């Protein structure tokens, strides 16, 4: 029985638990005429939960611990002699697992019977060849000690799997039965299922935390590696970004951070006012027809692949700005510029601001508007002085989201702003952002273990810390100026 089938059986038991629990609660209520503490469905849920949760937890724990324990045991069987020079025990163990897995498949596909397998010997059979038949890749031929280890790995794993199945099913049945016995009108069934839901909710919010840990962890290792190869001082304080293939690169983050900041600010300067005005217009002025058309239509802007925006920046906006703005003003001849990327990205960000703000504005109670109109305020006064402050926290959230998106955008910047890392004030010159360089250094032709590639991780981590700071600042601001209605 594979874990999948086991899980399905547990789920079937769970369903049965639900039905029985519910039925029992109903029966009790009728017989005693007692008022149930909770709805019958809650009793069903409680029984179902007791059936499912301990069993699945046990199963998860088992699945997690079993390989560790078995590995430990098998690993001690392997003599040092079969461990190749410079190799590690863990590599051999990986081989053992792979072989055991392959043997399983051999048996499953009927190529080898269980008996034949037990008499199979590494020095007489071409194990590598046999396993290749079932698509298990081995790096080299199999040493007898390793093969024996694999065989005992299999038998231990089999026993363990059997024990696991029994234990899990017994747990499910026992807990389910106990829970069913405990079903009484006074049982706080709803609290049980609500506690469970609550822990699910908590679990979900932990996903975000885990993601952060995952990100930091997956960046940190290579970042440390990078700083071993490249001085941190130069990375953080050098104003030159100039990677080279032959080493001796200048990898200063400052011009990239500046570019990120500059492009994002330009984008937000376009997106925030326009987005807010759209939100206001749709929420407060427009008729239902326009609103129900315009809102989803504008949301499409967020869904157009950024490469389209990139091409738009490259082919249309860039040359236009160059010919009509940069050259007449003598500010340069570059067709890719901060302004190009910023403006085009701003368009993409409009729906982030407009849609979310529109929802928040719409949620401000009508009584607020009435109060203001009743005093003779015009609609715009009402909006600016009453509705906006009331909706402020949500709007700040929307802007933050847009800013976040601006910082993380790649394609538009590559095509619109160019790839030149530069510290400058002229918005009509090419610049580039941290994100762009993360992508290009990571997907480039340089060897992985060189600072030129690893710098991508350091850039990612720095940006992460940097935006974290910005977010803390934003939270502080929102806290300070929030105004609660009702």
């Amino acid at each position: 029985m594979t874990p999948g089938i086991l899980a399905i059986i547990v789920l079937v038991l769970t369903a049965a638990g639900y039905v029985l629990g519910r039925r029992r609660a109903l029966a009790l209520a009728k017989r005693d005429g007692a008022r149930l503490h909770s709805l019958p469905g809650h009793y069903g849920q409680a029984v179902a939960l007791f059936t499912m949760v301990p069993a699945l937890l046990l199963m998860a724990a088992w699945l997690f611990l079993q390989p560790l324990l078995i590995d430990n045991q098998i690993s001690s069987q392997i003599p040092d002699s079969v461990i190749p020079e410079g190799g590690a025990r863990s590599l051999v163990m990986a081989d053992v697992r792979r072989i055991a897995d392959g043997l399983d498949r051999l048996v499953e596909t009927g190529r080898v019977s269980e008996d034949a397998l037990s008499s199979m010997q590494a020095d007489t059979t071409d194990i590598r060849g046999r396993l290749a038949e079932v698509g298990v890749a081995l790096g080299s031929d199999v040493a007898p000690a390793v093969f024996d280890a694999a065989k005992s790995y299999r038998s231990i794993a089999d026993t363990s799997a059997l024990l696991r199945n029994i234990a899990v099913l017994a747990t499910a049945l026992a807990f389910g039965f106990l829970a069913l016995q405990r079903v009484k009108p006074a049982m706080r069934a709803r609290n049980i299922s609500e506690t469970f839901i609550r822990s699910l909710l908590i679990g979900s919010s932990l996903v975000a935390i885990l993601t952060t840990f995952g990100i930091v962890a997956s960046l940190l290792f290579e970042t440390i590696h990078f700083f071993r190869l490249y001085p941190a001082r130069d990375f953080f304080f050098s104003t030159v970004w100039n990677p080279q293939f032959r080493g001796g690169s200048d990898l200063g983050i400052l011009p990239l951070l500046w570019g990120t900041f500059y492009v994002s600010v330009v984008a937000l300067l376009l997106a925030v006012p326009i987005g807010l005005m759209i939100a206001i217009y749709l929420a407060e002025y427009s008729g239902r027809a326009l609103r129900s058309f315009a809102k989803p239509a504008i949301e499409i802007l967020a869904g157009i692949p950024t490469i389209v925006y990139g091409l738009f920046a490259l082919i249309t906006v860039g040359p236009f700005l160059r010919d009509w703005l940069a050259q007449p003003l003598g500010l340069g001849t570059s067709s890719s510029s901060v302004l190009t990327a910023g403006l085009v990205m701003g368009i993409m960000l409009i729906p982030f601001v407009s849609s979310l703000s529109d929802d928040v504005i719409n949620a401000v109670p009508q009584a607020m508007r009435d109060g203001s109109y009743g005093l003779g305020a015009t609609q715009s006064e009402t909006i600016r002085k009453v509705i906006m402050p009331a909706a402020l926290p949500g709007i700040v959230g929307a802007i933050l989201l847009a800013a976040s998106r601006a910082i993380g955008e790649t394609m538009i910047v590559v095509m619109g702003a160019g790839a030149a890392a530069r510290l400058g004030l002229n918005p009509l010159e090419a610049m580039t952002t941290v994100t762009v360089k993360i992508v290009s250094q990571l997907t480039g032709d340089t060897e992985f273990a060189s600072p030129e590639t690893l710098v991508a991780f350091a850039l990612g981590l720095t940006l992460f810390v940097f935006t974290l700071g910005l977010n803390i600042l934003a939270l502080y601001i929102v806290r300070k100026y929030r105004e609660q209605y009702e």
Partner: protein
Amino acid sequence: MNMLTDAAVEETLQPLYKPAASKMTGKDVTVHYGEKQALFGVNLEVPEKQVMALIGPSGCGKSTFLRCLNRMNDTIDICRVGGSILLDGEDIYDPRIDVVELRARVGMVFQKPNPFPKSIYENVAYGPRIHGLAWKKSEFDEVVETSLQKAGLFNEVKDRLHEPGTGLSGGQQQRLCIARAIAVSPEVILMDEPCSALDPIATAKVEELIDELRQNYTIVIVTHSMQQAARVSQRTAMFHLGNLVEEGPTEKMFTNPDDKRTQDYITGRFG
């Protein structure tokens, strides 16, 4: 301007019974909310510098009529108003009319207290600010203080003027809303059950205030309390199922109504 003086003269001569010059006039006012008709051809004159009370059972259209008087109904999409309503002889539903100016002249206090999510001070200063009635900080301080005092709230909140208005108790909130309306010194003040959330002491203060305001302002008040109507109003109008049943001097309405329904409603009253 003539009308104004005339009205003033008339009122001093005959303080009650005889209708004063009308400040606002509703002619054949009908209101639909979508399909549903809420008012059926109401004809009503609101006398100048008097208090008119609108009474009637719940859902009969009092609030609806009141909201027509300063076009608050404009904000409800499905609401359609027919007939005409005149303010000083000018039709307020004329397309050339400026609703904003209208509402500055015809202020409103609502049934549910709805302070803005701002400080108490800002709540009151809001009207004067948008209408440009005050410029300097001192002027604002002045108008905020007087308005709060008139609404009988000043002493309770004087130490927390800069805390949010939403943190007040229900009654305090409603008085704040009254203060807010007074702060723009409108000509007509519409009040939709302004005291329904107030305790007797505060109610008394507001009623006193209404009496005081009557010197300069025209007031229309919706109320469920017959006592209140009797106490504060000079004229009373009785609504029923979207119709104006009867209108007349308050005293007469409460003692000798023409309509059977008014009679029933009033005698069916308690306390």
